[in-house]
Protein backbone atom coordinates (compact mmCIF):
# COMPACT_ATOMS: atom_id res chain seq x y z
CA UNK A 1 0.00 0.00 0.00
CA UNK A 2 2.94 2.33 -0.72
CA UNK A 3 2.05 5.90 -1.52
CA UNK A 4 4.62 7.97 -3.40
CA UNK A 5 3.56 11.12 -1.57
CA UNK A 6 3.68 9.40 1.82
CA UNK A 7 6.69 7.04 1.70
CA UNK A 8 6.71 6.62 5.47
CA UNK A 9 3.05 5.57 5.43
CA UNK A 10 2.15 8.25 7.98
CA UNK A 11 -1.43 8.56 6.77
CA UNK A 12 -2.05 4.86 7.47
CA UNK A 13 -1.07 5.07 11.13
CA UNK A 14 -3.54 5.40 13.97
CA UNK A 15 -3.77 8.63 15.96
CA UNK A 16 -2.22 6.90 18.97
CA UNK A 17 0.74 5.73 16.86
CA UNK A 18 1.20 9.16 15.28
CA UNK A 19 1.17 10.91 18.66
CA UNK A 20 3.73 8.44 20.04
CA UNK A 21 6.06 8.95 17.05
CA UNK A 22 5.77 12.73 17.29
CA UNK A 23 6.40 12.61 21.04
CA UNK A 24 9.52 10.44 20.72
CA UNK A 25 10.88 12.39 17.77
CA UNK A 26 10.64 9.58 15.17
CA UNK A 27 8.72 12.06 13.08
CA UNK A 28 7.54 15.65 13.46
CA UNK A 29 4.09 17.18 13.56
CA UNK A 30 4.96 19.16 10.43
CA UNK A 31 5.92 15.99 8.53
CA UNK A 32 2.71 14.30 9.61
CA UNK A 33 0.62 17.31 8.63
CA UNK A 34 2.36 17.62 5.26
CA UNK A 35 1.71 13.95 4.53
CA UNK A 36 -2.00 14.41 5.23
CA UNK A 37 -2.23 17.64 3.23
CA UNK A 38 -0.59 15.80 0.31
CA UNK A 39 -3.09 12.97 0.67
CA UNK A 40 -5.98 15.47 0.64
CA UNK A 41 -4.57 17.04 -2.50
CA UNK A 42 -4.24 13.63 -4.14
CA UNK A 43 -7.65 12.13 -3.36
CA UNK A 44 -10.15 14.70 -2.17
CA UNK A 45 -11.10 15.80 -5.65
CA UNK A 46 -12.69 12.35 -5.91
CA UNK A 47 -14.02 12.00 -2.35
CA UNK A 48 -15.02 15.61 -1.57
CA UNK A 49 -14.77 15.13 2.18
CA UNK A 50 -13.57 18.68 2.80
CA UNK A 51 -15.36 21.98 2.24
CA UNK A 52 -12.30 23.94 3.26
CA UNK A 53 -8.66 22.99 3.80
CA UNK A 54 -6.73 25.31 6.11
CA UNK A 55 -3.24 24.49 4.91
CA UNK A 56 -1.47 27.45 6.50
CA UNK A 57 -3.35 27.22 9.78
CA UNK A 58 -2.65 23.49 10.02
CA UNK A 59 1.05 23.90 9.36
CA UNK A 60 1.28 26.72 11.92
CA UNK A 61 -0.36 24.51 14.56
CA UNK A 62 2.02 21.67 13.67
CA UNK A 63 5.05 23.96 13.92
CA UNK A 64 3.86 25.09 17.37
CA UNK A 65 3.71 21.46 18.53
CA UNK A 66 7.21 20.79 17.22
CA UNK A 67 8.50 23.95 18.92
CA UNK A 68 6.94 22.88 22.21
CA UNK A 69 8.62 19.52 21.98
CA UNK A 70 11.95 21.10 21.10
CA UNK A 71 11.59 23.32 24.17
CA UNK A 72 11.19 20.22 26.30
CA UNK A 73 7.50 20.84 27.14
CA UNK A 74 5.26 17.88 27.81
CA UNK A 75 2.91 17.13 24.91
CA UNK A 76 -0.69 15.98 25.28
CA UNK A 77 -1.65 12.44 24.17
CA UNK A 78 -2.83 13.63 20.74
CA UNK A 79 -0.43 16.52 20.12
CA UNK A 80 0.41 16.93 16.45
CA UNK A 81 -2.31 14.56 15.19
CA UNK A 82 -4.19 15.90 12.14
CA UNK A 83 -7.94 16.17 12.55
CA UNK A 84 -10.87 16.92 10.24
CA UNK A 85 -13.55 19.13 11.78
CA UNK A 86 -17.21 18.88 10.85
CA UNK A 87 -18.20 22.24 9.43
CA UNK A 88 -20.74 22.81 12.22
CA UNK A 89 -18.29 24.01 14.88
CA UNK A 90 -17.23 27.64 14.89
CA UNK A 91 -13.55 28.09 14.06
CA UNK A 92 -12.21 31.60 14.45
CA UNK A 93 -11.22 33.08 11.11
CA UNK A 94 -11.84 29.80 9.26
CA UNK A 95 -15.04 29.46 7.16
CA UNK A 96 -17.94 27.75 8.91
CA UNK A 97 -20.90 27.03 6.62
CA UNK A 98 -22.90 24.14 8.18
CA UNK A 99 -23.16 22.94 4.59
CA UNK A 100 -25.52 25.84 3.85
CA UNK A 101 -25.51 28.71 1.38
CA UNK A 102 -26.98 30.89 4.12
CA UNK A 103 -23.62 30.86 5.92
CA UNK A 104 -21.39 30.67 2.83
CA UNK A 105 -18.28 32.71 3.50
CA UNK A 106 -19.01 33.35 7.19
CA UNK A 107 -15.85 33.70 9.26
CA UNK A 108 -16.72 33.14 12.93
CA UNK A 109 -15.24 35.74 15.30
CA UNK A 110 -14.77 33.07 17.99
CA UNK A 111 -13.93 29.40 18.57
CA UNK A 112 -16.42 26.78 19.75
CA UNK A 113 -15.43 25.19 23.07
CA UNK A 114 -14.64 21.95 21.22
CA UNK A 115 -12.42 23.86 18.78
CA UNK A 116 -10.62 25.57 21.64
CA UNK A 117 -10.05 22.29 23.49
CA UNK A 118 -8.63 20.61 20.39
CA UNK A 119 -6.26 23.50 19.75
CA UNK A 120 -5.14 23.56 23.38
CA UNK A 121 -4.43 19.82 23.18
CA UNK A 122 -2.17 20.42 20.17
CA UNK A 123 -4.36 18.72 17.57
CA UNK A 124 -3.83 20.01 14.04
CA UNK A 125 -7.04 21.17 12.38
CA UNK A 126 -6.69 20.27 8.70
CA UNK A 127 -9.97 21.79 7.61
CA UNK A 128 -13.75 21.60 7.68
CA UNK A 129 -15.71 18.62 6.44
CA UNK A 130 -18.81 18.31 4.30
CA UNK A 131 -22.17 17.61 5.87
CA UNK A 132 -25.88 17.63 5.23
CA UNK A 133 -27.09 21.21 5.51
CA UNK A 134 -27.55 22.08 9.20
CA UNK A 135 -26.88 18.37 9.93
CA UNK A 136 -30.29 17.45 8.52
CA UNK A 137 -29.86 14.28 6.55
CA UNK A 138 -28.44 10.79 6.42
CA UNK A 139 -26.34 10.91 3.25
CA UNK A 140 -24.48 14.27 3.04
CA UNK A 141 -26.38 14.86 -0.22
CA UNK A 142 -28.22 17.76 1.43
CA UNK A 143 -25.00 19.79 1.48
CA UNK A 144 -25.31 22.99 -0.55
CA UNK A 145 -21.80 22.26 -1.82
CA UNK A 146 -22.31 18.86 -3.43
CA UNK A 147 -22.24 15.30 -2.12
CA UNK A 148 -19.33 13.33 -0.63
CA UNK A 149 -18.39 9.94 -2.03
CA UNK A 150 -18.05 6.83 0.11
CA UNK A 151 -14.40 5.73 -0.15
CA UNK A 152 -15.62 2.11 -0.44
CA UNK A 153 -17.56 3.01 -3.59
CA UNK A 154 -17.56 6.62 -4.72
CA UNK A 155 -20.99 6.24 -6.34
CA UNK A 156 -22.51 5.59 -2.91
CA UNK A 157 -23.19 7.90 0.02
CA UNK A 158 -20.91 7.95 3.09
CA UNK A 159 -23.95 8.43 5.33
CA UNK A 160 -24.80 11.64 7.05
CA UNK A 161 -24.97 14.16 8.29
CA UNK A 162 -21.26 13.80 9.07
CA UNK A 163 -20.36 12.07 5.81
CA UNK A 164 -17.35 14.29 5.19
CA UNK A 165 -15.78 13.46 8.55
CA UNK A 166 -16.31 9.71 8.14
CA UNK A 167 -15.09 9.74 4.52
CA UNK A 168 -11.95 11.70 5.47
CA UNK A 169 -11.05 8.89 7.90
CA UNK A 170 -11.88 6.03 5.55
CA UNK A 171 -9.77 7.61 2.79
CA UNK A 172 -6.83 8.28 5.14
CA UNK A 173 -7.01 12.05 4.70
CA UNK A 174 -7.19 12.59 8.47
CA UNK A 175 -6.35 10.45 11.47
CA UNK A 176 -9.24 11.76 13.55
CA UNK A 177 -12.44 13.67 12.91
CA UNK A 178 -15.19 15.43 14.82
CA UNK A 179 -18.87 14.79 14.29
CA UNK A 180 -22.21 15.70 15.79
CA UNK A 181 -25.07 13.30 16.35
CA UNK A 182 -28.69 14.45 16.60
CA UNK A 183 -30.31 11.24 15.33
CA UNK A 184 -27.31 9.18 14.19
CA UNK A 185 -25.08 11.64 12.31
CA UNK A 186 -21.88 10.25 13.85
CA UNK A 187 -22.79 6.56 14.12
CA UNK A 188 -24.55 6.03 10.78
CA UNK A 189 -21.67 7.47 8.67
CA UNK A 190 -19.22 5.43 10.76
CA UNK A 191 -21.20 2.29 9.94
CA UNK A 192 -21.39 3.07 6.22
CA UNK A 193 -17.65 3.81 5.91
CA UNK A 194 -16.16 1.08 8.12
CA UNK A 195 -14.98 3.53 10.79
CA UNK A 196 -15.68 4.15 14.49
CA UNK A 197 -18.01 6.86 15.76
CA UNK A 198 -19.28 7.70 19.21
CA UNK A 199 -22.24 9.72 20.41
CA UNK A 200 -21.37 10.58 24.00
CA UNK A 201 -24.00 10.94 26.72
CA UNK A 202 -26.11 14.04 26.13
CA UNK A 203 -24.34 16.93 27.86
CA UNK A 204 -20.97 15.17 27.78
CA UNK A 205 -19.50 17.43 25.09
CA UNK A 206 -20.07 21.18 25.01
CA UNK A 207 -22.46 22.58 22.41
CA UNK A 208 -21.07 26.11 22.74
CA UNK A 209 -20.17 27.33 19.26
CA UNK A 210 -21.83 24.36 17.58
CA UNK A 211 -24.54 25.53 15.18
CA UNK A 212 -27.81 24.38 16.75
CA UNK A 213 -30.24 22.08 14.94
CA UNK A 214 -32.24 20.36 17.69
CA UNK A 215 -30.83 21.45 21.01
CA UNK A 216 -32.28 18.67 23.18
CA UNK A 217 -30.78 16.01 20.87
CA UNK A 218 -27.56 17.50 19.40
CA UNK A 219 -24.33 16.07 20.73
CA UNK A 220 -20.75 16.38 19.46
CA UNK A 221 -18.48 13.36 19.54
CA UNK A 222 -15.34 11.66 18.25
CA UNK A 223 -14.84 9.87 14.91
CA UNK A 224 -11.80 7.65 14.34
CA UNK A 225 -10.50 4.48 12.69
CA UNK A 226 -9.96 2.63 15.97
CA UNK A 227 -11.78 2.42 19.30
CA UNK A 228 -8.72 3.62 21.22
CA UNK A 229 -8.29 6.66 18.95
CA UNK A 230 -11.96 7.56 19.50
CA UNK A 231 -11.46 7.30 23.27
CA UNK A 232 -8.36 9.52 23.20
CA UNK A 233 -10.30 12.15 21.26
CA UNK A 234 -13.36 11.75 23.47
CA UNK A 235 -11.26 12.56 26.53
CA UNK A 236 -9.86 15.71 24.91
CA UNK A 237 -13.18 17.12 23.68
CA UNK A 238 -15.50 16.18 26.57
CA UNK A 239 -16.00 17.70 29.98
CA UNK A 240 -17.98 20.39 31.73
CA UNK A 241 -18.28 23.78 30.06
CA UNK A 242 -19.81 26.73 31.91
CA UNK A 243 -20.67 28.25 28.51
CA UNK A 244 -23.20 25.46 27.79
CA UNK A 245 -26.03 25.38 30.32
CA UNK A 246 -26.83 21.74 29.44
CA UNK A 247 -23.23 20.61 29.93
CA UNK A 248 -22.98 17.84 32.55
CA UNK A 249 -20.96 18.97 35.55
CA UNK A 250 -19.33 15.61 36.29
CA UNK A 251 -16.00 13.96 35.46
CA UNK A 252 -15.62 12.47 31.97
CA UNK A 253 -16.10 8.69 32.26
CA UNK A 254 -12.74 6.81 32.11
CA UNK A 255 -13.01 6.12 28.37
CA UNK A 256 -9.30 5.75 27.53
CA UNK A 257 -8.70 3.32 30.37
CA UNK A 258 -11.71 1.31 29.15
CA UNK A 259 -10.43 1.29 25.57
CA UNK A 260 -7.08 -0.05 26.76
CA UNK A 261 -8.79 -2.81 28.73
CA UNK A 262 -11.34 -4.24 26.33
CA UNK A 263 -13.35 -7.09 27.78
CA UNK A 264 -16.88 -8.46 27.71
CA UNK A 265 -16.38 -11.44 30.01
CA UNK A 266 -19.35 -11.70 32.35
CA UNK A 267 -21.04 -8.74 30.71
CA UNK A 268 -24.80 -8.89 30.13
CA UNK A 269 -25.54 -7.80 26.55
CA UNK A 270 -29.10 -7.04 25.42
CA UNK A 271 -30.40 -7.69 21.93
CA UNK A 272 -33.54 -5.68 21.23
CA UNK A 273 -36.14 -7.57 19.20
CA UNK A 274 -37.45 -4.33 17.62
CA UNK A 275 -34.06 -3.63 15.99
CA UNK A 276 -34.36 -6.21 13.25
CA UNK A 277 -36.64 -8.02 10.86
CA UNK A 278 -38.42 -6.36 7.98
CA UNK A 279 -36.46 -3.61 6.24
CA UNK A 280 -33.08 -4.98 7.36
CA UNK A 281 -30.72 -6.03 4.59
CA UNK A 282 -29.79 -9.74 4.73
CA UNK A 283 -26.04 -9.10 4.98
CA UNK A 284 -26.58 -6.63 7.82
CA UNK A 285 -28.67 -9.15 9.74
CA UNK A 286 -26.06 -11.85 9.11
CA UNK A 287 -23.06 -9.78 10.25
CA UNK A 288 -24.97 -8.59 13.30
CA UNK A 289 -25.85 -12.18 14.26
CA UNK A 290 -22.18 -13.11 13.91
CA UNK A 291 -21.19 -10.19 16.15
CA UNK A 292 -23.65 -11.35 18.81
CA UNK A 293 -22.20 -14.86 18.52
CA UNK A 294 -18.70 -13.40 18.90
CA UNK A 295 -19.77 -11.59 22.06
CA UNK A 296 -21.06 -14.88 23.42
CA UNK A 297 -17.75 -16.60 22.57
CA UNK A 298 -15.90 -13.80 24.37
CA UNK A 299 -17.82 -14.55 27.53
CA UNK A 300 -20.80 -12.20 27.39
CA UNK A 301 -24.26 -13.32 28.43
CA UNK A 302 -26.80 -12.53 25.69
CA UNK A 303 -30.26 -11.44 26.82
CA UNK A 304 -33.18 -10.95 24.44
CA UNK A 305 -35.18 -7.84 25.18
CA UNK A 306 -38.24 -6.07 23.92
CA UNK A 307 -38.53 -2.28 23.78
CA UNK A 308 -42.04 -1.85 22.39
CA UNK A 309 -41.94 1.96 22.30
CA UNK A 310 -39.04 1.97 19.84
CA UNK A 311 -41.43 1.63 16.91
CA UNK A 312 -42.70 5.13 17.79
CA UNK A 313 -39.20 6.60 18.14
CA UNK A 314 -38.69 7.51 14.49
CA UNK A 315 -42.04 9.30 14.34
CA UNK A 316 -41.40 11.11 17.62
CA UNK A 317 -37.98 12.18 16.39
CA UNK A 318 -39.34 13.59 13.14
CA UNK A 319 -41.67 15.80 15.15
CA UNK A 320 -39.30 16.83 17.95
CA UNK A 321 -36.23 17.57 15.82
CA UNK A 322 -38.12 19.65 13.21
CA UNK A 323 -39.97 21.50 15.98
CA UNK A 324 -36.73 22.51 17.65
CA UNK A 325 -35.12 23.31 14.29
CA UNK A 326 -37.97 25.59 13.25
CA UNK A 327 -37.25 27.63 16.36
CA UNK A 328 -33.44 27.43 16.25
CA UNK A 329 -33.20 28.42 12.60
CA UNK A 330 -35.31 31.53 13.13
CA UNK A 331 -32.01 33.28 13.88
CA UNK A 332 -31.10 33.12 10.19
CA UNK A 333 -32.97 36.32 9.39
CA UNK A 334 -30.41 38.09 7.16
CA UNK A 335 -29.81 40.84 9.71
CA UNK A 336 -26.58 40.28 11.64
CA UNK A 337 -24.59 37.68 9.73
CA UNK A 338 -24.89 35.34 6.81
CA UNK A 339 -26.61 35.79 3.47
CA UNK A 340 -28.88 38.74 2.65
CA UNK A 341 -30.91 38.72 -0.55
CA UNK A 342 -33.25 41.30 -2.10
CA UNK A 343 -32.30 44.32 -0.01
CA UNK A 344 -32.95 46.87 -2.76
CA UNK A 345 -33.94 49.76 -0.53
CA UNK A 346 -37.68 49.30 -1.12
CA UNK A 347 -38.33 45.95 0.54
CA UNK A 348 -39.09 45.56 4.23
CA UNK A 349 -36.92 43.61 6.63
CA UNK A 350 -39.57 40.88 6.71
CA UNK A 351 -39.56 40.54 2.92
CA UNK A 352 -35.77 40.45 2.85
CA UNK A 353 -35.79 37.74 5.53
CA UNK A 354 -38.24 35.59 3.52
CA UNK A 355 -36.32 36.05 0.26
CA UNK A 356 -33.02 35.26 1.97
CA UNK A 357 -34.30 32.10 3.64
CA UNK A 358 -35.84 30.99 0.35
CA UNK A 359 -32.50 31.48 -1.43
CA UNK A 360 -30.25 30.29 1.41
CA UNK A 361 -31.92 27.09 2.65
CA UNK A 362 -32.08 23.84 0.72
CA UNK A 363 -35.15 21.59 0.33
CA UNK A 364 -34.63 19.38 3.42
CA UNK A 365 -34.12 22.35 5.71
CA UNK A 366 -37.28 23.98 4.33
CA UNK A 367 -39.24 20.75 4.77
CA UNK A 368 -38.18 20.42 8.38
CA UNK A 369 -38.79 24.07 9.24
CA UNK A 370 -42.34 23.77 7.86
CA UNK A 371 -42.93 20.42 9.53
CA UNK A 372 -41.82 21.88 12.87
CA UNK A 373 -43.91 25.00 12.37
CA UNK A 374 -46.88 22.72 11.73
CA UNK A 375 -46.24 20.44 14.72
CA UNK A 376 -45.97 23.41 17.06
CA UNK A 377 -49.00 25.30 15.74
CA UNK A 378 -52.07 25.60 17.93
CA UNK A 379 -54.59 22.89 17.16
CA UNK A 380 -51.90 20.36 16.27
CA UNK A 381 -49.53 20.83 19.19
CA UNK A 382 -51.13 18.24 21.49
CA UNK A 383 -51.61 15.61 18.81
CA UNK A 384 -48.10 15.95 17.39
CA UNK A 385 -45.50 17.63 19.58
CA UNK A 386 -47.24 16.67 22.82
CA UNK A 387 -47.55 13.03 21.78
CA UNK A 388 -43.97 12.97 20.57
CA UNK A 389 -42.82 14.13 23.99
CA UNK A 390 -44.82 11.32 25.60
CA UNK A 391 -43.30 8.81 23.20
CA UNK A 392 -39.92 10.18 24.21
CA UNK A 393 -40.68 9.37 27.84
CA UNK A 394 -41.70 5.84 26.84
CA UNK A 395 -38.46 5.32 24.91
CA UNK A 396 -36.43 6.48 27.91
CA UNK A 397 -38.43 4.12 30.15
CA UNK A 398 -37.82 1.20 27.79
CA UNK A 399 -34.10 1.90 27.96
CA UNK A 400 -34.24 2.19 31.75
CA UNK A 401 -36.00 -1.18 31.95
CA UNK A 402 -33.46 -2.71 29.55
CA UNK A 403 -30.53 -1.42 31.58
CA UNK A 404 -32.10 -2.98 34.65
CA UNK A 405 -31.39 -6.33 33.02
CA UNK A 406 -28.26 -5.76 30.94
CA UNK A 407 -25.07 -3.68 30.95
CA UNK A 408 -25.15 -2.70 27.28
CA UNK A 409 -27.52 -3.12 24.35
CA UNK A 410 -26.30 -4.00 20.85
CA UNK A 411 -27.96 -3.63 17.44
CA UNK A 412 -27.05 -3.09 13.83
CA UNK A 413 -26.18 0.62 13.49
CA UNK A 414 -28.21 0.96 10.29
CA UNK A 415 -30.72 -1.30 8.52
CA UNK A 416 -28.76 -1.25 5.23
CA UNK A 417 -25.27 -0.66 3.90
CA UNK A 418 -24.37 2.48 1.93
CA UNK A 419 -26.98 3.32 -0.71
CA UNK A 420 -26.39 4.95 -4.09
CA UNK A 421 -26.00 8.72 -4.38
CA UNK A 422 -29.34 10.03 -5.61
CA UNK A 423 -31.36 6.96 -4.60
CA UNK A 424 -33.26 8.50 -1.67
CA UNK A 425 -32.59 12.20 -2.13
CA UNK A 426 -36.17 13.13 -3.04
CA UNK A 427 -37.84 10.47 -0.90
CA UNK A 428 -37.61 11.87 2.65
CA UNK A 429 -39.29 8.91 4.38
CA UNK A 430 -36.91 6.38 2.78
CA UNK A 431 -33.99 8.57 3.88
CA UNK A 432 -35.32 8.88 7.44
CA UNK A 433 -35.35 5.07 7.85
CA UNK A 434 -31.54 5.06 7.77
CA UNK A 435 -31.62 6.31 11.37
CA UNK A 436 -34.12 3.77 12.71
CA UNK A 437 -31.70 2.17 15.20
CA UNK A 438 -29.77 5.27 16.18
CA UNK A 439 -32.62 7.68 16.97
CA UNK A 440 -33.93 6.09 20.21
CA UNK A 441 -30.53 6.77 21.82
CA UNK A 442 -30.75 10.50 21.12
CA UNK A 443 -34.29 10.69 22.47
CA UNK A 444 -33.16 9.11 25.74
CA UNK A 445 -29.81 10.92 25.94
CA UNK A 446 -27.77 7.71 26.26
CA UNK A 447 -24.26 7.06 24.93
CA UNK A 448 -23.64 4.84 21.90
CA UNK A 449 -20.83 3.74 19.61
CA UNK A 450 -20.65 2.22 16.15
CA UNK A 451 -17.78 0.05 14.98
CA UNK A 452 -17.30 -2.19 11.93
CA UNK A 453 -18.50 -5.80 12.21
CA UNK A 454 -17.72 -6.97 8.68
CA UNK A 455 -18.75 -6.51 5.07
CA UNK A 456 -22.18 -7.49 3.79
CA UNK A 457 -21.66 -10.53 1.51
CA UNK A 458 -24.09 -9.25 -1.14
CA UNK A 459 -22.37 -5.90 -1.81
CA UNK A 460 -19.01 -5.99 -0.02
CA UNK A 461 -19.84 -2.83 1.95
CA UNK A 462 -19.22 -2.22 5.67
CA UNK A 463 -21.77 -3.08 8.33
CA UNK A 464 -21.80 -1.31 11.70
CA UNK A 465 -22.39 -2.76 15.14
CA UNK A 466 -24.00 -0.33 17.56
CA UNK A 467 -23.26 -0.59 21.27
CA UNK A 468 -25.52 1.41 23.59
CA UNK A 469 -24.80 2.24 27.24
CA UNK A 470 -26.75 4.14 29.90
CA UNK A 471 -26.12 7.86 30.32
CA UNK A 472 -22.72 8.63 31.84
CA UNK A 473 -21.53 5.05 31.30
CA UNK A 474 -19.69 5.95 28.08
CA UNK A 475 -16.69 3.90 29.26
CA UNK A 476 -18.71 0.68 28.74
CA UNK A 477 -18.90 1.45 25.01
CA UNK A 478 -15.14 1.48 24.80
CA UNK A 479 -14.63 -1.60 26.95
CA UNK A 480 -16.99 -3.58 24.69
CA UNK A 481 -15.83 -1.85 21.50
CA UNK A 482 -12.15 -2.58 22.13
CA UNK A 483 -12.85 -6.26 22.85
CA UNK A 484 -14.99 -6.70 19.73
CA UNK A 485 -12.54 -4.78 17.55
CA UNK A 486 -9.59 -6.90 18.71
CA UNK A 487 -11.49 -10.15 18.19
CA UNK A 488 -12.70 -9.20 14.72
CA UNK A 489 -9.25 -8.04 13.63
CA UNK A 490 -7.73 -11.28 14.88
CA UNK A 491 -10.32 -13.15 12.79
CA UNK A 492 -9.85 -10.98 9.69
CA UNK A 493 -6.08 -10.68 10.08
CA UNK A 494 -6.16 -6.89 9.52
CA UNK A 495 -8.27 -3.77 10.10
CA UNK A 496 -11.35 -3.69 7.87
CA UNK A 497 -10.22 -0.56 6.00
CA UNK A 498 -7.40 -2.61 4.46
CA UNK A 499 -10.11 -4.09 2.26
CA UNK A 500 -11.31 -0.73 0.92
CA UNK A 501 -10.34 -0.02 -2.68
CA UNK A 502 -7.21 2.04 -3.26
CA UNK A 503 -8.11 5.59 -4.28
Amino acid at each position, binding site marked *: MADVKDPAGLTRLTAAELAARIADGTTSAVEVTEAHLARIEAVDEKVHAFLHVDREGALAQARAVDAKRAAGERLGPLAGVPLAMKDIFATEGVPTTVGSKILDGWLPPYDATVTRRLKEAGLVLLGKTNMDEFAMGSSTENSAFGPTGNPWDLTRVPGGSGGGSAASLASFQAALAIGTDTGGSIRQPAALTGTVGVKPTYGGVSRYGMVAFSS*SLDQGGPCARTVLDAALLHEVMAGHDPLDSTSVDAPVPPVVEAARNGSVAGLRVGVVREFGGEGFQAGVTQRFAEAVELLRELGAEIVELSCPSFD*KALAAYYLIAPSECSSNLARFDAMRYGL*RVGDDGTRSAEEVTSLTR*EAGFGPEVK*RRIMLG*TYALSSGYYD*AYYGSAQKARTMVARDFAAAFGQVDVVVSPTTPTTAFAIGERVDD*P*MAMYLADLCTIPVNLAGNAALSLPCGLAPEDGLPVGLQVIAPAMADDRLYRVGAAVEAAFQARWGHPILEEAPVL
Partner: protein
Amino acid sequence: MPGITREEVAHLARLARLELTDEELDHFAGQLDDIIGAVARVSEVAAEDVPPTSHPLPLTNVMRADEVRPGLTAQQALSGAPAQEQQRFKVPQILGEE
Protein backbone atom coordinates in the same frame (compact mmCIF):
# COMPACT_ATOMS: atom_id res chain seq x y z
CA MET B 1 -55.43 12.50 11.57
CA PRO B 2 -55.99 15.05 8.78
CA GLY B 3 -53.54 15.39 5.90
CA ILE B 4 -52.05 18.69 4.82
CA THR B 5 -53.23 20.79 1.88
CA ARG B 6 -51.26 23.00 -0.48
CA GLU B 7 -52.94 26.06 1.07
CA GLU B 8 -51.81 25.00 4.54
CA VAL B 9 -48.26 24.54 3.28
CA ALA B 10 -48.37 28.05 1.79
CA HIS B 11 -49.54 29.36 5.16
CA LEU B 12 -46.75 27.49 6.99
CA ALA B 13 -44.20 28.89 4.58
CA ARG B 14 -45.41 32.42 5.33
CA LEU B 15 -45.26 31.78 9.07
CA ALA B 16 -41.73 30.37 8.68
CA ARG B 17 -40.63 33.31 6.47
CA LEU B 18 -39.93 31.18 3.42
CA GLU B 19 -40.81 32.81 0.08
CA LEU B 20 -41.52 29.51 -1.70
CA THR B 21 -42.07 29.27 -5.45
CA ASP B 22 -45.22 27.65 -6.88
CA GLU B 23 -43.21 24.59 -7.96
CA GLU B 24 -41.82 24.20 -4.44
CA LEU B 25 -45.31 24.46 -2.97
CA ASP B 26 -46.56 21.68 -5.28
CA HIS B 27 -43.57 19.50 -4.44
CA PHE B 28 -43.47 20.08 -0.69
CA ALA B 29 -47.24 19.71 -0.24
CA GLY B 30 -47.09 16.08 -1.37
CA GLN B 31 -43.95 15.31 0.60
CA LEU B 32 -45.14 16.93 3.82
CA ASP B 33 -48.42 15.08 3.52
CA ASP B 34 -46.49 11.80 3.29
CA ILE B 35 -44.25 12.66 6.23
CA ILE B 36 -47.13 13.78 8.42
CA GLY B 37 -49.03 10.62 7.52
CA ALA B 38 -46.02 8.57 8.64
CA VAL B 39 -45.33 10.43 11.88
CA ALA B 40 -49.01 10.71 12.86
CA ARG B 41 -48.73 7.31 14.55
CA VAL B 42 -47.25 9.00 17.61
CA SER B 43 -50.74 10.25 18.40
CA GLU B 44 -51.53 6.64 19.34
CA VAL B 45 -49.83 7.44 22.64
CA ALA B 46 -51.75 10.71 23.18
CA ALA B 47 -54.09 9.08 25.68
CA GLU B 48 -51.29 7.33 27.60
CA ASP B 49 -50.86 8.57 31.12
CA VAL B 50 -47.16 9.40 30.90
CA PRO B 51 -45.49 12.76 31.45
CA PRO B 52 -43.95 14.51 28.45
CA THR B 53 -40.16 14.69 28.12
CA SER B 54 -38.77 17.86 26.58
CA HIS B 55 -35.17 17.14 27.41
CA PRO B 56 -32.99 14.14 28.32
CA LEU B 57 -31.58 15.87 31.38
CA PRO B 58 -33.42 17.28 34.37
CA LEU B 59 -32.84 20.93 33.53
CA THR B 60 -32.19 23.52 36.17
CA ASN B 61 -31.46 27.15 35.60
CA VAL B 62 -27.73 27.77 35.45
CA MET B 63 -26.42 31.06 36.79
CA ARG B 64 -22.95 32.50 36.77
CA ALA B 65 -21.44 35.17 38.95
CA ASP B 66 -22.48 38.65 37.80
CA GLU B 67 -19.01 39.74 36.78
CA VAL B 68 -17.74 41.55 33.74
CA ARG B 69 -15.84 39.29 31.39
CA PRO B 70 -14.42 39.82 27.93
CA GLY B 71 -16.83 39.58 25.01
CA LEU B 72 -16.68 40.30 21.30
CA THR B 73 -15.58 43.76 20.25
CA ALA B 74 -18.00 45.78 18.11
CA GLN B 75 -15.75 45.13 15.14
CA GLN B 76 -15.82 41.37 15.74
CA ALA B 77 -19.58 41.33 16.26
CA LEU B 78 -20.11 43.25 13.03
CA SER B 79 -17.58 41.22 11.05
CA GLY B 80 -20.24 39.00 9.48
CA ALA B 81 -22.90 41.67 9.01
CA PRO B 82 -24.43 41.91 5.52
CA ALA B 83 -24.44 45.71 5.95
CA GLN B 84 -23.27 48.07 8.66
CA GLU B 85 -23.17 51.76 9.36
CA GLN B 86 -21.75 53.76 12.27
CA GLN B 87 -20.72 50.59 14.14
CA ARG B 88 -24.26 49.22 13.95
CA PHE B 89 -26.07 46.52 12.03
CA LYS B 90 -27.79 48.17 9.07
CA VAL B 91 -31.14 46.53 8.33
CA PRO B 92 -33.89 47.08 5.76
CA GLN B 93 -36.87 49.20 6.77
CA ILE B 94 -38.83 47.58 9.54
CA LEU B 95 -42.00 49.69 9.25
CA GLY B 96 -44.19 49.57 6.15
CA GLU B 97 -45.80 52.51 4.34
CA GLU B 98 -49.19 52.20 6.03
